[in-house]
């Protein structure tokens, strides 16, 4: 069984900027995969290479075993891309937009599936509305629907929830999760790390065109060797603990500790200083901590 996505030594340069500097990545079929990185890390470039919107300078990119250059027809049939920009064709209604997109893939009698996609994305009431008249959130739904009209086995979502309200975000993830359960491979880029943490089985972190971390989501979080302890005391933080101070919230000080043993030491410090603990909370590291750690170290 070919990998859903296979990238070998992928390079892409724009003038002086090395946008992709040798990416190696394999995403097996059926996986929910996250692609994270700061702005300019190369996420969108990587997606563009896969989609054939950009041509790679060196290396190899395959979708479901089809080379994106020599087997571009099969590769593009296997791939559904939800672009980051909110683009639309102002001449057409929602239904026309979806029928046209479907036709580009050679699918003429696709109404049943188009209706199903519209139903799942709550677009039925807007079917005959011109694209121009839709709100941003609705346009985003149409973009998702357009990526799905040809039932691609691999779906790539480039920051699909940027500027989207909570309700749509939840409905969208519900739908995408179902597609994933049905066997579709999902590749997601997002700046909302909590989304990536709950959804993605495996994550690649990109920085300056390179993969700097690639592991299962729990493993990436396990790599973070610190805990955060939020303390609200009836007085100032004892002097010895200042070195551990990580930050503060409205009413508490946050300490960054290396291990559980450090908690005991911190608490005994507080006791020795005669302070009383009014509130205390132990914060487990999450993907955001892992992300910040990886970006700082690499």
């Amino acid at each position: 069984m070919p990998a859903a996505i296979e990238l070998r030594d992928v390079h892409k340069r724009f003038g002086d900027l090395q946008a992709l500097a040798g990416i190696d990545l394999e995403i097996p079929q059926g996986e929910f995969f996250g692609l994270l990185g700061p702005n300019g890390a190369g996420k969108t470039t990587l997606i563009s290479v896969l989609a054939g919107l950009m041509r790679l300078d060196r290396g190899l990119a395959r979708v479901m075993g089809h080379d994106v250059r020599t087997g571009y027809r099969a590769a593009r049939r296997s791939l559904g891309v939800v672009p980051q920009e909110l683009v639309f064709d102002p001449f057409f209604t929602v239904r026309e937009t979806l029928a046209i997109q479907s036709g580009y893939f050679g699918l003429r009698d696709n109404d049943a599936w188009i209706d199903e996609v519209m139903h799942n994305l709550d677009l039925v009431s807007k079917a005959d509305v011109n694209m121009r008249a839709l709100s941003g959130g609705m346009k985003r739904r149409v973009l998702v629907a357009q990526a799905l009209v040809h039932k691609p086995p691999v779906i790539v979502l480039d920051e699909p929830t940027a500027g989207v309200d909570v309700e749509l975000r939840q409905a969208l993830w519900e739908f995408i999760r179902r597609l994933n359960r049905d066997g579709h491979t999902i590749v997601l880029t997002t700046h909302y790390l909590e989304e990536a943490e709950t959804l993605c089985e495996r994550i690649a972190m990109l920085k300056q065109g390179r993969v700097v971390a690639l592991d299962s989501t729990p493993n990436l979080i396990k790599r973070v060797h610190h805990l955060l302890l939020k303390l609200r005391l009836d007085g100032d933080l004892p002097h010895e603990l200042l070195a551990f101070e990580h930050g503060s919230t409205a009413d508490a000080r946050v300490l960054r500790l290396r291990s559980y043993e450090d908690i005991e030491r911190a608490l005994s410090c507080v006791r020795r200083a005669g302070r009383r603990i009014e509130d205390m909370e132990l914060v487990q590291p999450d993907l955001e901590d892992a992300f910040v750690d990886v970006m700082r170290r690499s």
Partner: protein
Amino acid sequence: MSGFPTLLYKEVLRFWKVGTQTIGAPALTAALFLFIFGHVMEGRVRMYDTVPYTAFLVPGLVMMSMLQNAFANTSSSLIQSKITGNIIFVLLSPLAYWEFFAAYVFAAVVRGLVVGAAVLVVTLPFVSAEFRHPLWVAAFAFCGSAVLGALGMVAGIWAEKIDQVASFQNFLIMPLTFLSGVFFSIHSLPGFWQRLSHFNPFFYMIDGFRYGFFGVSDVDPLRSLAVVAGFLVLVSGFTLALLRSGYKLRH
């Protein structure tokens, strides 16, 4: 199945939905040209000794409208899609570069033919034009629109802003169509300009098209068709090469 018919349909639907601008406006412009030039010139000149000036003018106006609108169809569609970003939907599809080319150019031909028919409808009541050789009319209408559709693609692919397409249209397409013998027979020009006209491919489109109406022309229609067909092959080859390379479309 191929995505070509859908892209063709979409490109036709795009101009059809705004028909007042894309079909009505050029028909009105042509009618005004006929009214004004016909009024001023009628009775003063006879073309090819036998054809009244207004009748002579009609095929020229029809062809000029076809050429300009075929160009406008591809160039405006491409530049708009590029600027708004919705070109991505075509680029993400499995369409081959030559299907992309064929769909845009055929849509331009459809626009050209529809506009040409509209211009004929509004101008014919005022003149008694003949259709001596309808096949020649059809051949030049098709080839002329196709050439301009392909040139419009080149402009649309190359341009990054709408005013660059407008420059292409105003400084190249407009002068070449106006100076191609729409309003006059090149035999009425001084020798130098007459010879220069022979380097203008648009001249052969209009001259050959007019032959289909009156059975007379400045140049042998077979030679005109050869020039126009040759030009079509040249422009198409260039456009296809641009598309194949991904120039300004696939970076």
